[in-house]
């Protein structure tokens, strides 16, 4: 298949690299993002401090681990490139037709851009977040040797995130405004993804519902492995992430194929 050939890999990697570079060209918005990040971590450090004593824990998480957990989930959340508006505009304006005539697949073209933009933000956010979290609660016992494995899980988390987002954005072929879908999705991530607290703290019935869905594999699972690595859990998470990725890829490609049939371009 075209997308797995070396030439295709080189092509899409170049796109990702260009997006990476363009994202770091604007350092000004970095200031407010850093402040926001520091503010959230600071408030939660104080909150967990008021709730938990120095050596007590909740659902197996100490105060220090909870702060680092939040650092990881927020890093993923804040780094997630906002490609949805652009995709929706391309679909609605018919600009998608110009990508159709290029030697690129629309979905993987967007994927490369998404990964390029998200990666630059993620590196920055993890770096800043780690400094802030270290200043607030110190360094947790993270095994550095496992970090490459966590990176794999994080990459798949971003892939899942991309697939869900492009699926929602492609609905613009049928509906006028996909904004509400993204709004609902952001709330779903906030609740079922486990943005602020690990889902182990949720009531049992809700935890079961959450585990059965793909959203916790975007935030909760990578963050949990980051603060408390376990090889068996890693293998399991990786397997389920891969399964959701395959399912969602098939769904996205199907939706895209159906949607493209609806494109009609009137001149240029």
């Amino acid at each position, binding site marked *: 298949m075209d997308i797995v050939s070396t030439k295709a890999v080189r092509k899409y990697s170049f796109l990702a690299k260009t997006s990476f570079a363009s994202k770091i060209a604007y350092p*000004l918005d970095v*200031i*407010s993002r850093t*402040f*926001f990040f520091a*503010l*959230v971590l600071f*408030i939660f450090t*104080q*909150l967990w*401090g*008021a*709730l938990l004593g120095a050596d007590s824990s*909740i659902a197996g998480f100490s105060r220090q681990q909870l702060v680092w957990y939040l650092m990881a989930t927020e890093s993923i959340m804040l780094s997630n490139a906002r490609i949805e508006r652009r995709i929706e505009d391309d679909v609605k304006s018919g600009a998608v037709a110009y990508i159709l005539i290029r030697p690129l697949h629309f979905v993987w073209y967007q994927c490369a851009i998404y990964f390029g933009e998200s990666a630059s933000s993620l590196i920055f956010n993890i770096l800043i977040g780690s400094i802030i979290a270290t200043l607030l609660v110190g360094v947790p016992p993270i095994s550095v040797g496992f970090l490459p494995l966590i990176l794999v899980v994080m990459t798949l988390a971003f892939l899942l995130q991309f697939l869900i987002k492009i699926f929602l954005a492609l609905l613009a072929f049928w509906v006028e405004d996909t904004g*509400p879908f993204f*709004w609902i999705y952001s*709330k779903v991530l*906030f*609740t079922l993804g486990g943005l*602020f*607290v690990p889902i182990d*703290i*949720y*009531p049992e019935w809700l935890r079961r519902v959450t585990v059965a869905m793909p959203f916790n594999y975007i935030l909760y699972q990578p963050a949990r492995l980051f603060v408390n690595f376990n090889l068996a859990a890693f293998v399991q998470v990786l397997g389920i992430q891969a399964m959701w990725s395959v399912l969602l890829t098939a769904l996205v490609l199907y939706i895209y194929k159906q949607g493209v049939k609806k494109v009609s371009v009137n001149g240029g």
Partner: protein
Amino acid sequence: MSTAAKQLRFVVEQLRVNILSNMEYRISFLVQMVFMVLNDVMLLFFWWVIFQRFDNIAGWGQKDIFLLYALSAGTYGIAYTIFGNALRLSSLIVEGQLDYYLALPKDVWLNVLISKSLASTIGDFVFGVGMCLAIFGFSYKVLLAIVFMMVASLILISAATIVHSLSFFMGNAEQIAAVFSESMLSFSLYPISVFSLSVRALLYTAIPAAFISFVPVSLLQEFSFGLFSLFLGVAVFGIWLSRRVFYAGLKRYESGNLVAPRM
């Protein structure tokens, strides 16, 4: 008619026009409002989860926290429904877009702030009042809560205007204003007792978030004339200071010579 009564009539009339212009796109207006209410309800999810495990957080029960959210949302709702332009004051200053207001025979400070309403913030107000009704039922406390929201909204707008007015003195203060707004909002959504003493001191002074939610909630739980006087005093002082800073800055204002139609 006294000056105060005239100003109040002007505010009410402008608010009516702003709401009517928002309602021109009725469906979009309603959707934005409903989504804001849902957004506020979803924010309670975190606390609901926490209260499944803990009875109280630094002395605050679930009802107290929900009341904190109600007061905070209601205050933001009133503030930005009436003074919706406060959020973009620094960009108006930097881009030299105050000319329009300078040419009108109205108080510039007031006219700039009230000439826009944010449709979605009405949803915040609806949520705030709805939560108060859910907590207190049909009690006089709901009316009291609305009065407190109004007073707190004056403090919020005064503080925001002061920070935005920094653009008169130091060039573009948009980033500072954004950071300030974010801090005010974030701190007003958590019980003040979880913070250290130095942070609490900050929340009564430089970032007066305590007056947005904590003080009104305390007053609703146990009314005290002393605290209420302080609350009112801070609002009056805030408006006075905000106007002083704004007009001092206005003397340094440079027009953008922008020629644009106002629709």
